[in-house]
């Protein structure tokens, strides 16, 4: 009974806050006397939709890459062999410490062209994935190191070897602790994908820029742009919160 009430109150508050925000935005926009030209957006709808799809595909690919690489870098940082440890620390610090823009330019125009890979989508996905992997590696490391020593000992005591200990004891528990930070990184990854236009990928932001410069529009492109990102990021955050609740086993 109590729970239902909280849900209803929460819904009412959300509606109130949202309508206040909408009203405030509307009032502000109305006061600047902007000449809206929505016709242009409608004409560019297929272009914009393709841009949105490109953003989604690259983000999904980069997400997979970043999780696998991030996991590998976390393991590397915990390796017992010093060179592997140093390599992982160095990679994480270099990638996190330098701008994604520079990594994209050097990665695509110098490294990829030297290796002979010319697909900007493929290279862009890999580079974006690598960039986020450095952040994820640290989130994963924090989660793994937060599992107490007694759990490692208990795992060893029932006879698990190192692989089994990670698989059955450490990772299932670390997963839940890594979830909030990981969600934030994935959302940030989706938004960072807008930088990929510098290597010639026509993702959503680039499509909007093209439209704006050809038609002297501005906000007509950027408002739908914000909504197109939110359509993806909000459900993602919601799903992550659901997952967190499902994994909640500690009191």
């Amino acid at each position, binding site marked *: 009974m109590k729970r239902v009430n909280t849900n209803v109150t929460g819904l009412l508050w959300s509606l109130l806050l949202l309508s206040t925000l909408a009203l405030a935005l509307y009032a502000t926009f109305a006061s600047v006397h902007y000449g809206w030209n929505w016709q242009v957006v409608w004409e560019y709808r297929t272009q914009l939709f393709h841009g949105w799809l490109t953003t989604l595909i690259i983000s999904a690919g980069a997400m997979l890459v970043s999780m696998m690489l991030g996991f590998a870098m976390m393991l590397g940082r915990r390796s017992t062999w010093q060179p592997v440890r140093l390599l992982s620390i160095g990679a994480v610090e270099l990638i996190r410490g330098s701008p994604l823009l520079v990594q994209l330019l050097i990665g695509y125009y110098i490294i990829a062209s030297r290796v002979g890979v010319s697909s900007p989508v493929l290279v862009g996905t890999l580079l974006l994935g690598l960039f986020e992997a450095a952040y994820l590696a640290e989130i994963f490391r924090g989660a793994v190191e937060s599992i*107490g020593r*007694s*759990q490692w*000992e*208990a*795992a*060893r*005591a*029932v*006879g*698990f*070897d190192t692989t*089994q200990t990670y698989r*059955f*004891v450490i990772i*299932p*528990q670390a997963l*839940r602790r890594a979830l909030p930070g990981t969600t934030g990184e994935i959302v940030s990854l989706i938004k960072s994908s807008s930088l990929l236009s510098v290597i010639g990928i026509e993702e959503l932001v680039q499509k909007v820029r093209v439209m704006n410069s050809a038609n002297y529009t501005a906000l007509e492109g950027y408002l739908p742009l914000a909504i197109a990102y939110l359509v993806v990021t909000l459900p993602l955050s919601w799903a992550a919160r659901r997952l967190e609740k499902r*994994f909640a*086993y*500690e*009191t």
Partner: protein
Amino acid sequence: MKLEAYQLIKNYGGFLALDGASFHTADESRVVALLGPSGGGKSTLLRVLGGLLVPDSGEVRVNGTSLPRDETGSLRALRGNGFVFQGYNLFPHLSAIQNIILPLREVHGWSPDDARHRALELLARLGLTEHAQKRPAELSGGQQQRAAIARALAPRPSLLLLDEPTSALDPVMTAEVLDVVRELAESGQQIVLATHEISFARKVADWVVFLAHGKVQVSCTTDDFFQNPESSIARSYLQGLSRYR
């Protein structure tokens, strides 16, 4: 069983937990109690005897066979034993029954049916049938320790090692766990028990190893130890413990 240890040394970053500990039990000891003040080396010795820790130097023999020192060898040796610690043994993300089944399946290669059957049998024996599906956070401390004992017993270990299994429990739960240990001892399970529960050790153990400062001060039958402790450290330890009980 016969346990022997020769000149065991274990150093934890400058702290000598074991400083040349040596002892041997009688040939047919069944329940060996490790007694002594905190920080004296009981927990470390227990882990070394069970193969969970490899000492820096020294040798352990169980029934005349040396414990291996290499990684794969010591893992194989410790898989023949069961361990229960002070607390926080169970895996918090798994239910009580899953805690028992998982090692049976993954470490000992049991079939799903056999593992499940064995887990249910042990849960029933330890009075936990109705708690089988609960996660550790939903169990009391005593229930958690009994589930941990069930998990340790599941693969039928030749040796059950308990490291102060009741130190984190209140008196009621302590009694509940000690009852289980006594029943196991009476049913013939070979046990090594590190404890501060002196009167319990006196009732159940047939051999006592008394440690202080990383060295074995006394190693003798339980009767000899309690009737006439030959070491002065052991005497004052016993007097200190019996002052309020």
